[in-house]
């Protein structure tokens, strides 16, 4: 400040304002201009006529008045509605002691009130805000890129990493390690603990690679039931905690011998699997794969069987089992267990169907005669149809009754299935027909002797064979006397009647093999015991219920069979009309497990109930309802 200014200040100090305006040059240098205004009142505003001219659009053209009240104090008063800030507080008017000082703010300008040594009121004016937002200092790299708008890549990455590692790794592992030790390792115990169970490992369901099969659904989320040890693959012992009665396919040493030597790739895979601690070949999980999706467990593919059975004879040189690798292309002929010698002590043998084996049950029965649509049997069926439920001729179901599960058929029973036509009645007393006892030759002989001893036969007994009968006259409960009239007239009729019953043309002889007295040192008449085979295929499984859309005759050649010893089983070729190998284009692609069970027992292979191939073709080959109903046994 120059000396002249000070002089002016001293003179006019009582009433003057000293205005100091600070501005900055482009290169940031500070410029201060001072002016003394010797007025008791000055104007503040944007208008150029104002004493303190603030080029600020936030300031009205005539914004405020500053007035001196006395030597020290000034009054600031807004002229319009827009006020100003005094020491940061919005205000319309204020009284300020210049000795104490204050800071006024008008828009983007600051006016500092102070007092000079010469008792002037000093108003220091300075622009504090830039002209515009754009004019403010900016980091070009920040504002032009997304860096100014986005959260940084690094914090984003760290947040994601920490979150994922916590949720999917740290929590499950910590929960696994801190789970209670008294783990029962049993599906039933585990399921009992469902609900607020204590031993649930938190978050490990996110590790599951897929849903468990239907049978193991109860173990969902109970990973540690099977994955008993960390970093140790599932062992057979885990399966056997529940599956206690699973037995092996064969003796372990036989299986080891039978297993094919792996090729180079196979050996490499095996060594890698071994290095990673996978259980050796033949482990439960080799065939029974889990986490393959909800629903039934996937059937075991045929390759698991073919691995050994395709070339079994080259390693198990003493085996009687033929090589098999694919049902459609490489499967031995069926070898049903047939009865080669009937009798009290029958002898069974497995004979391939190619050798046309005979199955001698001990019975005489021509299928063709019984199923013929013409002739005596058909007439008989027509007459008895209403009562017995026969049609125009006998059908398979007239005599063969399926078992309750529909898998196979009950043995044919004389009383239930034959007697409707083949009556053993010999006398009617008071409306009740007396019948010879089937299956008890001694009782038959005794009953006949008693018949002749008691009274002279006024009515001859009915015991003839079927050859000379007239249709309809000899149904159960009726007595036929054409033949035995002559017999009854003879003296000592009992022995003759007994011989007649057991001999050719007699009631027993027609169906049974009868040995007269004296043969094979027998003292009396003997009837060869009858055995009916319930299951010919002992090593495979056949379910009649699954084939009920087929007619019986499409597999069983009954209409041409004239002897009971004819084995009416369909052969391999017949089955292959519908069934082929697992990957074949046949109607029913069939893996080994459709008929065979690795863990073989009396029951069906487990897969036959759930395998999709068992359902699909049935739907595909559905016949009209009426036809199906007629076929049903």
């Amino acid at each position, binding site marked *: 400040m120059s000396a002249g200014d000070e002089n002016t200040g001293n003179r006019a100090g009582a009433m003057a304002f000293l205005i100091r305006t600070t501005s900055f040059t482009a290169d940031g240098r500070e410029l201060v201009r001072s002016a003394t205004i010797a007025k008791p009142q000055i104007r503040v505003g944007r208008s150029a006529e104002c004493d303190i001219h603030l080029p600020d*659009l936030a300031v009205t053209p005539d914004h405020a008045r500053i007035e001196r009240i006395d030597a020290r104090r000034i009054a600031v008063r807004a002229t319009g509605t827009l006020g100003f800030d005094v020491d940061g507080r919005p205000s319309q008017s204020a009284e300020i002691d210049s000795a104490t000082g204050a800071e006024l703010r008008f828009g983007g300008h600051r006016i500092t009130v102070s007092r000079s040594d010469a008792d002037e009121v000093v108003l220091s004016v300075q622009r504090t805000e830039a002209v515009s937002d754009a004019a403010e200092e900016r980091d070009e790299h920040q504002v032009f890129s997304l860096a100014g708008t986005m959260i940084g890549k690094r914090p984003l*990455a760290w947040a994601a990493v920490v979150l994922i590692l916590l949720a999917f790794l740290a929590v499950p592992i910590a929960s696994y390690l801190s789970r209670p030790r008294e783990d029962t390792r049993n599906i039933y115990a585990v399921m009992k603990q469902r609900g607020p169970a204590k031993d649930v490992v938190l978050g490990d369901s996110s590790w599951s690679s897929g849903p468990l099969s239907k049978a193991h659904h109860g173990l969902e989320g109970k990973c540690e039931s099977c994955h008993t040890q960390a970093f140790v693959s599932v062992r057979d012992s885990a399966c056997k905690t529940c599956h206690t009665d699973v037995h092996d396919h064969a003796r372990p040493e036989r299986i080891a011998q039978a297993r094919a030597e792996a090729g180079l790739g196979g050996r490499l895979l095996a060594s890698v699997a071994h290095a990673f601690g996978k259980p050796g070949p033949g482990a439960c999980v080799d065939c029974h794969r889990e986490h393959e999706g909800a629903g039934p467990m996937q059937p075991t593919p045929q390759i698991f069987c073919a691995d050994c059975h395709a070339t079994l004879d080259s390693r198990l040189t003493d085996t009687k089992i033929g090589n098999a690798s694919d049902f459609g292309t490489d499967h031995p002929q069926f070898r049903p267990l047939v009865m080669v010698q009937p009798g009290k002590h029958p002898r069974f043998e497995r004979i391939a169907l190619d050798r046309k084996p005979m199955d001698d049950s001990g019975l005489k029965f021509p299928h063709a005669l019984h199923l013929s649509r013409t002739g005596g049997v058909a007439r008989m069926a027509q007459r008895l149809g209403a009562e017995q439920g026969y049609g125009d001729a006998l059908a398979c179901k007239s005599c063969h009754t399926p078992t309750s599960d529909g898998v196979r058929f009950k043995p044919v029973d004389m009383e239930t299935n034959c007697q409707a036509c083949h009556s053993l009645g010999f006398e009617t007393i008071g409306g009740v027909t007396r019948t010879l006892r089937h299956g008890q030759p001694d009782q038959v002989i005794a009953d006949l002797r008693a018949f002749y001893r008691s009274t002279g036969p006024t009515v001859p007994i009915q015991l003839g064979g079927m050859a000379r009968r007239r249709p309809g006259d000899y149904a159960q409960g009726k007595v036929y006397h054409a033949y035995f009239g002559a017999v009854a007239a003879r003296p000592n009729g009992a022995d003759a009647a007994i011989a007649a019953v057991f001999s050719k043309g007699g009631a027993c002889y027609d169906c049974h093999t009868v040995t007269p007295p004296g043969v094979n040192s027998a003292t009396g008449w003997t009837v060869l015991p009858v055995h009916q085979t319930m299951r010919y295929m002992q090593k495979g499984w056949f379910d009649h219920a699954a084939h009920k859309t087929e007619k019986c005759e499409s597999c069983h050649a009954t209409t041409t069979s004239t002897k009971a010893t004819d084995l009416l089983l369909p052969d391999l070729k017949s089955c292959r009309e519908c069934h082929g190998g697992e990957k074949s284009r046949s109607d029913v692609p069939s893996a080994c497990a459709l008929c065979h069970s690795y863990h073989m027992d009396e029951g069906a292979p487990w897969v036959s109930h759930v395998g999709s191939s068992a359902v699909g073709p049935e739907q595909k080959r559905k016949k009209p309802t009426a036809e199906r109903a007629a076929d049903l046994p």
Partner: protein
Amino acid sequence: MATRASSTHTPRAKGETLHDGFLRHAGFRWAKIAGGLSLLLVVSYALIDITPRHNGGSWYGYTLGTIGVGLILWLTALGLRKRAMTTGRWSLKAWTSAHVYLGLSLIVIGTLHTGFQFGWNVHTLAYGLMMLVILSGLYGITVYTVLPRALSSNRSEMTQGQMLDALRAIDRQLHDAAQPLAQEDAALVRMSLDQDPFGGGLWRRLTGNHRDCVTTQAHRELRRATSTRPNLGNDPLEKVDALLDRKEAMLAQLRRHLRLRALLEIWLYVHVPATFALLAALTAHIVSVFFYW
């Protein structure tokens, strides 16, 4: 980028480099390698009979998984490699070319590794993140190919600093021109001056939608006043009006620039963090598989 500088057959002098983008590097060498690998894997997937069905837990699945994780780690290493700019056989360009094409082949490797079995689990999370990384990378390549031309034509020889300076100059003139205005009009101008040209958030940046721009609003309001009066040349409002016109044009250019840059940059905000998320999910995936082995 990605354009062959010359198709003439003049032989190159020793040491001379012809500009060749990383996509076309060495006659698409890495595209061929990655394509061949993918084809091989697709064919082998179809031919190799895995029972009961393909999944990550078969020998084939483990093989694919091992290839996949190795590839992912190598691809991530580009982040380190790019900091050392070198030329020659293992040049950064070759590396980037391989990064792009082998990264794309990871779609095939990863998908076949899953055996198309997906679920709400950490394994599918890792797969999803991998696909996110790959797809964001694919987006990145696309915008790098398409946008720089648009960016350069929009700049019309101006640098970013010049654009900002131009805006500042208009603002200064606006500020001066508005001094004589009445308070109401001055407030409108001040609204425009106080506007942050870089404001508006990510969505505005990416879409370029600035319909509620205050400069436009201020301009519209002032226009309403000036349109009914004759322009006599001495109305300060007319001057402000003209300046606001210029400011709007300048803002539009700046915003186009910002939008193009945002579109060019946004994929890295997905690609990089998702890569690290993928590495974490991959760790959880691998550890969990062997934990419940």
